[in-house]
């Protein structure tokens, strides 16, 4: 039944079919990355292979070289763009998925505490969400990427350990800290709604503990909207991460990340005024990858929004 509704909606709107195909394509590329662009042994597979002059350990970045049989998409400062695009697909998922999960977990924790606690706790936590809302997202993300330390000493009495954060981890943390308030607000209002329901009242009447009512009755019935929201937010998150990466707050050159490649090819665009498209291969391919993934996701999202909306379901 459910499947038939989905299929009918997808058949009725070819755009959502296109979206689904694009998303599926990127998932395949991400999964098959080791086959499509085999990494050499013993090095981090997310670092693009470097093919250029070196003095000892020091890389002398050469100008971009155009596509050739050896490097199908060309190279940027010696790094293979094809490899970067293929493994960049994994990077996109590796950034997007943790961001969504961390933001969701934070939002769930804070929203649930607020919605279940009521009173002063609710008031304080929701003001905290308001404060994060009032902070323009891009600014907060940039401030956090700059301010987060690379090494974090965690000292919880008997438990002590140090966490090292790579530039990419900082990006993930910053994006998650920007994203949680919207989840917190939605889960809170959903909980306030579900708490009024008769079955919650009934569960309390037969003597269920508060924790059991929360976990078994309220949570499962108020999770639905934020799970949808989280799924739909993936495309937006990838776009946000790419923007920050482009501005120079992402991983360093050579890392397989679409926006990092675009960011560094920007320096080469104006170096050839007499031949404007000379170095365009360096940024056009990764741009197309970025655009296609976000486009696919938003096309799919449009269809899913209608399907997952219970009020429209049987129309």
């Amino acid at each position, binding site marked *: 039944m459910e499947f038939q509704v989905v299929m009918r909606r997808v058949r009725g709107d070819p755009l959502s079919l296109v979206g689904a195909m694009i998303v599926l394509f990127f998932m395949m590329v991400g999964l098959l990355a080791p086959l499509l662009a085999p990494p050499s042994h013993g090095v981090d597979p997310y670092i693009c292979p470097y093919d250029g002059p070196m003095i000892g350990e020091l890389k002398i970045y050469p100008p971009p070289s155009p596509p050739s049989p050896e490097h199908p998409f060309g190279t940027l400062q010696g790094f293979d763009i094809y490899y970067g695009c293929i493994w960049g697909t994994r990077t996109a998922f590796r950034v997007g998925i943790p961001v969504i999960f961390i933001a969701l977990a934070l939002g769930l924790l804070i929203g649930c505490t607020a919605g279940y606690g009521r009173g002063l706790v609710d008031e304080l936590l929701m003001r905290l969400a308001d404060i994060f809302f009032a902070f323009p997202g891009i*600014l907060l993300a940039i401030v956090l990427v700059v301010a987060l330390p690379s090494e974090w000493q965690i000292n919880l009495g008997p438990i002590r350990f140090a966490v090292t954060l790579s530039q990419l981890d900082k990006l993930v943390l910053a994006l998650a800290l920007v994203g949680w308030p919207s989840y917190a607000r939605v889960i809170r209002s959903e909980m306030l709604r579900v708490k009024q329901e008769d079955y919650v009242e009934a569960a309390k009447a037969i003597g269920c503990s508060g924790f059991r009512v929360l976990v078994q009755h309220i949570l499962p019935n108020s999770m639905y909207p934020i799970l949808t929201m989280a799924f739909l937010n993936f495309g937006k998150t990838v776009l946000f991460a790419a*923007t920050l990466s482009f*501005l120079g*707050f992402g991983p360093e050159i050579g890392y397989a990340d679409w926006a990092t490649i675009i960011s560094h090819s920007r320096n080469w665009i104006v170096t050839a005024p007499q031949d404007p*498209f000379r170095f365009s291969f360096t940024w056009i391919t990764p*741009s197309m990858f970025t655009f296609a993934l*976000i*486009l696919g996701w938003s096309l799919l999202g449009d269809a899913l929004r209608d399907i997952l909306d219970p009020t429209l379901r049987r129309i």
Partner: protein
Amino acid sequence: MRLISYIVRRLLFAIPTLLGLSLIIFYTTMFFPPRQRVRLFISESQYQNPRGPDPVPALIEKYHLNDPFLIQYTTWLREVLRGNFGYSHSYNKPAVNIILRFFPATLELIIFAAPITIFGGYTLGVLSAKRAHRKGLHGDIVDYVTRTITTIGYSLPSFVLGLLLLVIFYLVLGWIQPGRLSIELQTFVSSPTSGWVSYTGLLTIDGLLNGRPDITLDALRHLVLPVIILVTQNLAILTRITRSSMVGELVKPYMVTAKAKGLDEENVIRHAKKNSLISVLTVSGVLFATMLTGVVVTEYVFLISGIGSLVVHAASNLDFVLLVDVSLLFCVVFMLFSLIVDIAYAYIDPRIKP
């Protein structure tokens, strides 16, 4: 009268949020050592004294930089309220001066981009929804084209569009250079002997006030591409939201009532328009945020010296004083913006009383 008391009440409610914001902003600087955090307080380069004793330990003592967090925070807040916004080490100037110098370029961009976005997006959304309503769920060709364009506009990263426009219009066609003015005019404007007076900092207006319409025209020409980038993404978002809320309104029972009363289509649509505006206002905060993201990317790509490129510059040079001040500025701007939105709610929806 009721409106004034509402505004006052809203402003009072904004104080705790602003305090919370400043707390978070200040907390992010705690990751830096006290020696660097001194820059949040001094207004001159008094700590760069090559001769004589090192003044920094005394300053750290004076501003309680080794004391507990809350003491540091209150010291800082007091200085900020006094108008001391610290010192930017990457520009070697007081942070306020830098922000004031960079702000007009951003303001100019927004003055041109915001009206186009709002009117264009709203009109397109209403048009698309009307077509969709008339022709069933999927609409006709106008609706289809609008939806395709908005989906593409929404998914195309603004930096990709920026690079594309830069290559086409600057390198291929040679029409426009990056920056706010052509090089000769830029040298004229920035030279102290030229007699150029910067009344507002907005080049389009200053050009007219100085009796130099050619500068106004040149500034306008340089604004075209950045404004296109700023508009594209926001227009797409606004069109989508207007369309979906309009489609939602058009099937509500009051529309049938309006038709049954015998109103012509123009007037029937007007009922729905007003109600759909409410959901557009609800997402105006999101629009503000995407606009700001657009500003940062656009200024970075087109080398416009506005707040956006200032943020990128400050962040890459770890000039956290500038970041703190710009954050404070934009949080205040956003609070004022949401106040205006709330007042607009009361005007549009009679159920909400100020």
